[in-house]
């Protein structure tokens, strides 16, 4: 039987802890470093960057992050899978190749590039041929917003990652590959799992789901016993120790903080969960009601029993379109009667917006410290004695103009509204373009993943 492989999570999102990848590659033995960069609307941010400069459109801070660890990767033969390529994986690969050459690693590393997820250039062709690309949540056909679409990407699975590894890539840089595919790919490659081994593919998918949010399964953001999680300042990011039979352990490097426990792994399993019996990916459908967890030593949880089924014939695609504008303004009111003052300020502001004739799709008021997260369920607040309340008011409109005007109505309240107000040092809020998410399905035969090799 083949030896287990160790796949370490290095980034759980674009903006995660910059120290984590370095700690993962130096803190103990690993075979793969997996880094997930892409949230639902990240692609549209990258598409915008690319439209301004064709050499951009990927996670730029991936490059210095990699530059720091490239020598260790080369020395220890650790492979990387990362969807940091965004809408421009080739440019991302070129930037990494240049870093590697600067570090004297020419000839010592091979980069694999996965593309084929970008459907934006083919969008009109797809619509003309009858693909309506209806919104999975609302049922609306894409033609309703076609002229405002900024990005369109199919979720690719593990297959092109496996292909890149098979062709000798040490670093696999992808566009919109699923978070789970970045972990499953190395397992398929290492163990030679067949394309229809549904239970094994589901096991690898579950492993990917557990570590895709980084430290969120190793003690971070963990509600159960949170005050007893040791040394979060030094938190160890998770590592999957995977076996060829589909069972795996979740572990972390020795001498790191955090905690790997059944309760913590369970919290991550149910995170962003839909129907647990059908966790759908391009690779398989994983049944989360079959997962068995048990403690297997200090900071070690064994996962087994995962069952899977064939993936559907459709791939999910994510589109991003320009929706409108929003802005959020905040002011802080102090005791006495802090909440009453904040409520009065809200009434005054709303009246002024109405008197100006401004049209908004939505105005939302929250009193932070009172009802922002738990709404009417938070009944135990001592309204009379609360030391301060933050008034947080947001507006949303299809046009920029009313939102822009709203941003000028916050500061005047400081001098011409209720008293005891502070907390406006940040200045006027800025109108923000809303780029919204449009999930849809497409026949998988319409999408052809492409794998290229870039030699360093």
């Amino acid at each position, binding site marked *: 039987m083949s030896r287990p492989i160790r796949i370490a999570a290095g980034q759980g999102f674009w903006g995660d802890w910059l120290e984590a990848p370095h700690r993962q590659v130096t803190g103990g033995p690993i075979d793969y470093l997996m880094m997930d960069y892409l949230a639902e609307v990240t692609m549209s941010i990258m598409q915008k960057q690319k439209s301004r400069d064709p050499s951009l459109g990927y996670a730029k801070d991936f490059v210095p992050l990699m530059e720091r660890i490239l020598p260790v990767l080369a020395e220890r033969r650790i492979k990387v899978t990362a969807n940091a390529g965004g809408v421009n994986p080739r440019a991302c690969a070129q930037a990494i190749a240049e870093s590697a050459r600067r570090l004297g690693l020419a000839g010592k590393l091979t980069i694999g590039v996965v593309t084929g997820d970008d459907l934006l250039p083919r969008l009109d062709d797809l619509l003309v041929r009858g693909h309506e690309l209806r919104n999975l949540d609302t049922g609306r056909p894409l033609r309703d917003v076609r002229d405002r679409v900024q990005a369109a990407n199919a979720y690719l699975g593990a297959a092109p990652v496996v292909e890149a590894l098979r062709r000798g890539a040490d670093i696999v840089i992808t566009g919109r590959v699923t978070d789970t595919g970045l972990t499953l790919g190395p397992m398929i490659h290492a163990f030679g799992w067949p394309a229809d081994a549904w239970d094994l593919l589901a096991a690898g998918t579950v492993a990917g789901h557990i570590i895709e949010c980084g430290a969120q399964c190793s003690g971070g953001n963990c509600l159960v016993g949170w005050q007893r999680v040791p040394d979060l300042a030094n938190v160890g990011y998770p590592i999957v120790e995977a076996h060829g039979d589909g069972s795996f352990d979740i572990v972390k490097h020795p001498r790191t903080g955090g905690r790997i426990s059944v*309760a913590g792994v369970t919290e991550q399993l149910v995170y962003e969960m839909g129907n647990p019996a059908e966790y759908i990916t391009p690779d398989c459908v994983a049944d989360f*009601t079959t997962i068995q967890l048990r403690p297997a030593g200090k900071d070690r949880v064994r996962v087994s029993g995962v069952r899977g089924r064939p993936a559907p014939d459709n791939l999910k695609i994510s589109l991003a379109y320009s929706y409108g504008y929003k802005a959020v303004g905040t002011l802080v009111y102090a005791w006495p009667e802090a909440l009453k003052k904040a409520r009065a300020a809200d009434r005054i502001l709303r009246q002024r917006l109405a008197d100006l004739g401004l049209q908004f799709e939505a105005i939302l008021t929250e009193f932070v410290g009172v009802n922002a997260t*738990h709404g009417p369920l938070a009944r135990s607040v001592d309204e009379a004695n609360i030391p301060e309340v933050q008034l947080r008011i947001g507006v949303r409109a299809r046009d920029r103009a009313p939102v822009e005007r709203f941003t000028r109505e916050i500061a005047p309240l400081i001098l011409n509204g209720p008293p005891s107000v502070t907390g406006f040092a940040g200045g006027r809020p800025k109108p923000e373009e809303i780029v919204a998410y449009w999930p849809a399905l497409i026949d998988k035969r319409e999408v052809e993943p492409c794998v290229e090799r870039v030699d360093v």
Partner: protein
Amino acid sequence: MKRAAARTVLLVELAHARSGDKGDTANVGLIARKPEYYPLLVRQVTAARVARHFKGMITGPVQRYELPNLHALNFLLHGALDGGGTISLKTDAQGKVFSTALLRMPVRVMR
């Protein structure tokens, strides 16, 4: 025979939870702190009860799924996030702490 008296506790004493988002839907995964608490969660924390609990906070229906293997329930709260994602004006636009709001629910336990 003397009947065991029941008392009311908040769900947070029996369960922990984590939540996330899919568009305008928040999910709350509710996990029994001990396996023996799970049947009580199944009996008392029904989809209908959760819908009543969140009255005024969500605009759509509530779905519940059972994960007996993990001693967990998964709730989908539709219309919970003011449009969700980038559209939402809420502090908790991604539903990250909806989980804790569910843990305020009172449940009946035997003393």
